[in-house]
């Protein structure tokens, strides 16, 4: 109990003293996971919408793959991305392993199926007659897709939150492809693990609290946007 209190105190001290290392780590967490979420948003929403609106052979298999992808363990993603990015691996020439860029790639791979799966069901859940109505009003196909995406914006924002929540709290893949390098690829989750193994439990708790606050802050902002019209 005392430890948790100490951790809380330390978190507040670290936050309010604007400790440069902790600020750097937090900002990097936000950047990496934010960018990964953004990329997965583009890929996931467009892919999910396309899957929802088209019919082609093999579609069921792709949807099954996306649904499986929603639950793929991040460490497995980390392992495969590491193998791809090794100097001796197929993408080794890019020199990406142990960089923040590698972490963005891994997190994008983790988040994209989540965003895609939720987008797919969001668009499919719209009333099918809506499509015909929009088309009957003379909309082009692009306009129709745009209107459908707008109509499904609430569940789509939920997809963003699920994707972001999944990657900012992720540790296995991040530490494998990022390497937890001080001042460079150390993020909140990897730093928390390291401080725990160093026996610096107060600092670890402090970092954990900062992570929670960040995740809450971003989700609160998104929820605010999501619920804006519903007031």
């Amino acid at each position: 109990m005392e430890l948790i209190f100490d951790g809380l105190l330390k978190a507040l001290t670290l936050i309010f003293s604007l400790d440069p290392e902790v600020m750097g780590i937090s900002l990097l967490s936000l950047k990496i996971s934010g960018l990964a979420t953004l990329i997965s948003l583009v890929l996931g929403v467009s892919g999910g919408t396309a899957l929802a609106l088209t019919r082609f052979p093999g579609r069921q298999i792709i949807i099954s793959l996306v649904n499986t992808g929603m639950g793929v363990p991040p460490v497995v993603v980390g392992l495969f991305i590491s193998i791809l990015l090794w100097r001796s691996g197929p993408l080794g020439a890019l020199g990406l392993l142990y960089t923040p860029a590698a972490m963005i790639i891994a997190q994008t791979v983790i988040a994209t199926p989540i965003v895609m799966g939720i987008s797919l069901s969001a668009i499919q859940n719209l009333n099918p007659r809506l499509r015909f109505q929009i088309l009957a009003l003379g909309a082009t196909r692009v306009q129709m897709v745009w209107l459908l995406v707008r109509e499904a914006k609430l569940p789509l924002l939920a997809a963003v939150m699920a994707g972001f929540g999944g990657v900012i709290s992720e540790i296995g893949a991040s530490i494998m492809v990022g390497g937890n390098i001080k001042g460079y690829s150390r993020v909140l989750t990897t730093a928390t693990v390291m401080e725990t193994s160093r026996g610096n439990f107060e600092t670890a708790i402090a970092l954990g609290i900062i992570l929670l606050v960040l995740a809450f802050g971003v989700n609160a902002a998104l929820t605010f946007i999501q619920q804006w019209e519903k007031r």
Partner: protein
Amino acid sequence: MKKQAMALVLLLASLLAFPVGGALAAEKNLILATTTSTQDSGLLDLLLPAFEKDTGYFVKTIAVGSGQAMAMGEKGEADVLLVHSPAAEKKFMEGEFGVDRKLVMHNDFVLVGPPSDPAKVSGAKLTAEALKKISESGSLFLSRSDKSGTHSKELALWKVAGIAPDGQKWYQQTGLGMGQTLSVASEKEGYTLADRGTFLSMKKNLSLAVLVEGESNLLNVYHVISVNPAKWPKVNAEGAKAFNDFMVSGGAQEMIKTFGAEKYGQPLFTPDAGKKVEELGK
């Protein structure tokens, strides 16, 4: 809707506005694969800034067990290693994966366990004797089992004791680093083998005591090894050489000599540059 979309775009754009520091110029990067003990003790936090300032290299430290560090070296995924697993290092050198293996420093291993010492190992002259007592009394022993230097030392000690602990009920394998294994041992009231540095740096959170120490067999010797550029043309040979030289330089050795003295009452490592392994501990 427009306002919300704008807000969302602004939020995301503000994230993008901080460019993520991508790959720095490749030749100024140096990948150091090392053991968790050098990172967890905080020694590298002291040494690396000095090295980076001197040479302009940016060191990417990957803290893993000695075994994994050498596996990275064998694949050319690291440029330079700082490890403490002499038997495995010899194999590594024989396979021509490394060049320039130099003695850097040592500390020692200690057998730690619950202060109540249920197996009555305290004061045993030989660690192998203590291990025998642990196995005979069936007291819990925690093994790292992660192919680290500590793990391979532990296995060698079991061999000396003539015991095959694998599969025994009292022998549990954590698969974790040193710090975490010490925490597990403390919580479960078990024995474990630890390097003194990590034990001292974590002592305040543990209910464990040093029970066996001082045997010459318990020396924990660290070497720096450059990965062989002839085998892996992609390794940063120049950077590895610079780091290799730095670790045995007077400045680094002086930092090692005093590191930890203030905080733990005794230095965590003894600098050994230029010495021979056989001379240590005498």
